[in-house]
């Protein structure tokens, strides 16, 4: 799995690509933790854009949960967007889409991300 980062003025967009399975989960988790640890005061929100994510296993889901919690602790807004149908199915089946905000696309996620420190 490959992860790209894109920094907007107050929001960092994380773009995981490929398969987020047990083998990839630990690496992805470390990347997200590193991002949040270095967030500082300039960052207001984190969006995980899943447009390039083909598959997520339960171990991968756990990283989304940990990221959501860590963002909350850091006082950042957190959102997920652009789930492919196979990934959406896993989010729905596990009940995750009930506890993590999922937007249809990046524009919708950005529209709901605060434009100043929260």
């Amino acid at each position, binding site marked *: 799995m490959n992860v790209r980062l894109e920094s907007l003025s107050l929001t960092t967009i994380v773009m995981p690509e490929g398969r987020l*399975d*047990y083998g990839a*989960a630990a690496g992805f988790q470390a990347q997200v933790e590193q991002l949040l640890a270095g967030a500082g005061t300039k960052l207001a929100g984190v969006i995980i854009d899943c447009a390039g994510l083909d598959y997520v*296993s*339960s*171990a991968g*889901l*756990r990283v989304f*949960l*940990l990221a959501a*919690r860590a963002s909350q602790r850091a006082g950042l807004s957190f959102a997920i967007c652009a789930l492919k149908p196979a990934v959406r199915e896993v989010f*729905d*089946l*596990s*009940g*995750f889409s*009930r*506890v993590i905000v999922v937007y249809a696309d990046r524009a919708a996620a950005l529209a709901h991300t605060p434009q100043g420190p929260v």
Partner: protein
Amino acid sequence: MNTSLVGRAVQSVNAPVRQLAQLLLERDGPYGQTFENLILALIVLSLVSVGLETLSGLPAWATLVLKVGEIVVVAVFSFEYLLRIVAAPRKLAFVFSFYGLVDLLAIAPFYFAGLDTRYLRALRVLRVLRVLKLQRRVLENIVAERTRELAERNSALMQAQAQLKAELDIARALQIAILPSKFPAKSGCDGAARMVPASTMGGDFYDFIELPDGQVGLVMADVSGKGVPAAFFMAVARTSLRELAMHHAEPAACLARTNDVLCTQNPMELFVSVFYGVFDPATGALRYANGGHNPPYVRRADGSIEVLSGAGGLVLGVMPGVEYQSLTAQLRAGDRLVSYTDGVTEAFNHVDEAYGEERLIAEVQAHGDGSAEALVERIFRSLTIFSGTVPQSDDITLTVLTWHRPNLGEVPLAGLQTPSVPAAGQ
């Protein structure tokens, strides 16, 4: 008399001399290195003096210095030679050994005064061999020592690894052993299950729980992740669920309480998807709740497949206070309930294609008429053929429950009248 005196003298002299030899001759001794350097320096010095002596017209004082130098060199060499003889465990063997002869040749010419011994003295260069040999031996010793240390560490590491593997194997065997190997003996139904963990310790589990009122609790669950943390979480989840099932007749309430317990005992922030059903073997009624697990299939006696509705409840362990929904399904004679973990549908083949629900449904449809055990066996065989040589990446767990109306003679009429079965559809 005479010999015994000499013997005693040798005896009394022997011990201190041996000690001295140890101090000077052994390289690891306190003065070994210094003594060896001294000998080396004297060898070089005497070779230089042999060269100088060949020059004609040396001043008298120089000739004197060379002579005195020669005497000192020979004295030290002679002292060393005698010391080596005394120190040698087999003295004759030493005298006639190559180095023994070289040492003797180095000093013998001096004692044959009158001969031109310069060329013989040049043989002293051979003495350098002893030093070189010593150095090589020291190097070899160092290499041997390092090799031995490495081998020791390697073997300790291998031992630790073997021990760790043995313990993990035991833990894995225990994990499988705590799962029920048999479906509770109930008239009218039959069940079979299999869990094949991936290479590491897994987090899948299933359970058949005999409930107080003659019903059977059916559990199919999958902990996020793998390895020891997942296995521990699995053990806590299974134990909690089993315990709470005894006190909560409603599947939804049972899942909700299990979730609350798991949320307080979850340092690794893992979670587990759980399908929990309460089956009444007397009536074929199934009440169930689903905490984020793949919905099981009901295969009707005619071969049609229905997916149990009500999926999408939150997996357990994420947050306390979550409510679940209890739903009902009615099995009819000849129906089967097939539950599984995603290890089945997400088994991959060599072209990275997933086994998928379609293949699973096709197997269940085509081969669901026999016993529960036969269907489990059939699906695992199909999975094995599909995966080929691709290693199993996730635990694979499957249970099948078959229901056929119990023998009327055995049916407690009260069982049919029990109002414990909610109306179909909810």
